């Protein structure tokens, strides 16, 4: 706030804070600062040299050197991390996917391309469900939102591989086809899912068919 006088506006005088001579001389402050730096220095040098560093993931937010020397050390991703996709399998090795196109419809990036195909004539499942002839995901377009996993009614597509999209050299390498998606394993190593799949003719679930009763 300026002060108005007869000579015009002059600035408001700001009082200088009083600093005792020891603070003004700055040397005690230098000593205090050096104490902090030396403490960090000796503790960290000892821990790094003797491999006693806190583990950056298990003891996060610790004081000390918690640098992750990637790629020799890696932080594991959290449990619900959405990584590359995989198609889960039934017991006989075929994909659980029934080509309902829910995932490709729900995908905001439109990175899933499915070509459905009918089962052969005489197959129990014909008319009841389809299978994907082609199932292609462009991982480069994928935004890893997980809508496809939420949309799938059959727990057929999952994003629990725990791997991020590697930095490939060209766009073609990011196009994952059905065989690659079926070959991927989840974090626990399995390719099937714990959700049971009841095929038609299963006595425990008598309504799983399309017979008109």
């Amino acid at each position, binding site marked *: 706030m300026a002060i108005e006088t007869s000579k015009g506006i002059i600035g408001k005088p700001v009082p200088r804070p009083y600093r005792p001579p020891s603070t003004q001389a700055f040397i005690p402050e230098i000593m205090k600062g050096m104490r902090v730096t030396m403490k960090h220095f000796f503790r960290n040098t000892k821990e790094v040299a003797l491999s006693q560093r806190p583990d950056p993931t298990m*003891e996060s937010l*610790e004081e000390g050197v918690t640098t992750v020397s990637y790629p020799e050390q890696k932080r594991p991703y959290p449990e619900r991390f959405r990584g590359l996709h995989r198609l889960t399998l039934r017991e006989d090795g075929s994909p659980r996917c029934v080509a309902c196109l829910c995932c490709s419809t729900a995908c905001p990036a439109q990175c899933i391309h499915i070509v459905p195909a009918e089962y052969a004539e005489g197959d129990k499942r014909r008319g009841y469900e389809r299978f994907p002839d082609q199932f292609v995901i462009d991982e480069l377009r994928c935004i890893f939102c997980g809508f496809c996993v939420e949309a799938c009614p059959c727990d057929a597509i999952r994003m629990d591989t725990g791997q991020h999209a590697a930095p490939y050299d060209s766009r073609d390498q990011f196009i994952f086809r059905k065989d690659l998606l079926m070959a991927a394993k989840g974090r626990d190593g399995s390719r099937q899912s714990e959700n049971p799949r009841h095929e038609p003719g299963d006595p425990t679930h008598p309504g799983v068919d399309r017979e008109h009763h």
Partner: protein
Amino acid sequence: MDGYFFLFTGLKILVVLLFIINTAAILTWGERRQSAMIQDRIGPNRAVIYLPSVVLKGLVVVVSALVAAGLANYGRLASLRPERVRLDAGFALTELLVLLGWMTIIGVRSLERKRGGGILSRSIPDARLVFFIGLAIHAAVAVLRANVTGEERTPNGLANALFHYVGPFLTPAAVLGLGIFALTNIPRGKVGIRLGGMLHALADGAKMAFKEDFIPTNADRLLHSLGPLIALFPAFVVFAVIPFGDTLCIHPDTSGHFWADLFNARIGDVGGAYSPYVARYGICSEGAVPLQVANLNVGILYMFALAGTGIIGAAIAGWSSDNKFSLLGGLRASSQMVSYEVAMGLSLVGAFMTYGTVRFDDMVRWQSENAWGIFVQPFAFFLFLAASIAENKRVPFDAPEGESEIVAGYYLEYSGFKFGMFMFGEYIELAISSAVLVTVFFGGYALPFLHRDGITLELGETVYYHLALSHRLVIVLGVLTFFLKTWITCWVQLFIRWTIPRFRYDQIMKLGWRFLLPSALVNIVGTGTVLLLIDAAGPALSRTLDVVADASQGLVLVLGVVGIVTLVSGVLAPPRKHGRSASSSAKFAEAAGGTRTTPMQA
């Protein structure tokens, strides 16, 4: 001037150059790695050389075999000499054995703890216990050696066994055994050699040499290329007058062959009969090789003259770059260096008055006889420290190269090797200023109570203990002491850099002219007054001052020993416990055995 003079001068230049360049390289490494330690991160460590583990194992075996052979030969040669020399050699080997012993126990214990369980890790709760017991055994062996005079050929039982047999035979075997034990701990496959980040610093230096070297379009081509040279040159040549050791008395043989005479030269005193020991006072009349490159009689004035030359380099570099920021940086550099040059010179005048000389080697001799410079001139030490940090344009006085203000200041338009010369030159200046600090204030190459004839524990007039050490050993200890003190002082200067923020330019100028210069003058007046009072007081005060000076040497010795013991026991302290995080990635990491998938390659 015979051929030996040129040979020795060349060797001295080589030693000095090697020391400076290696110190500057180590400081570059330290600047990046150790400053990272303060910021709780690891510095750059990506540069790596992969050696097949076979090569590494072979290297370890060969090195340990060579060392063992050298130690065995040392013991064998000593057994042919007089009893005193034999006992000294046996004593040294036995102490080495004790050192290897406790270090091996601690190493094996920590290896067992990493692998979970083992005899040593269960029975020894704390590694520091082993260290202190090892120190006690060291002291016991030393006391045993001190009680044996060396007159009779076969001393009594325990000393005989230790110094004649255990030391010379067991120590080489222990070294070889340790080498073979180390073989089992080298991992298979390829081993990445990082040298603690030094390879990365080396790689950066090599990169600097191979980068494109350009001169700006409208720049003055000659001056642009000349700037780094003029800035770097004084930094190197100042070391010519700094003594890195005491005067060596070496007497080559007189058979006429140059190299054979040198090989058979005798180090020690040849007045009369040859003796490996020299007298405490005085320097041998012939064969004296002062361990300074040039024994100038102007001494420190040579250093001031050359530091003034360095100013021109910064100014030329700033002006010739055709860049406003460089010009600003060059102006700041030259005015800052000029102002602190005056303060630097005046702050040392008090030291000249006290030591009575401007020559470095006489200063060190005064300090080894009396007290170290920091006790005699403490105020001048701080003034000179501040002035020399400002002279070298190091943080907190690095306004000329203030990165956040004028990008890089006067070396903005430099790249490649010329930039490397500026950077390297800054670290060389750091090493030089540390060497000067050590020589003037920290006793140079002198250790407390160590003189040319050996160790003499005395307080004023009374001598409590005297141990004669050979001239060769005294010289080697002096040189090693000087290098170690210079490194420690460099480290302290690096620490100041990591701690203090940059001063504003007007604050720098005000500090130089309005505080340092008047304080230096006050210091001169005060020192002069005190000296005149001491002279006028008489011999009683002189004797008291002698006692106080020797007490200060004792204080330095005690502080040094306490410092080393504290450092080692701090390193051996058990690791601190860490808290556990509850996130799911932590659970995954724990299931995988931690984030360390390979041995920590920091």
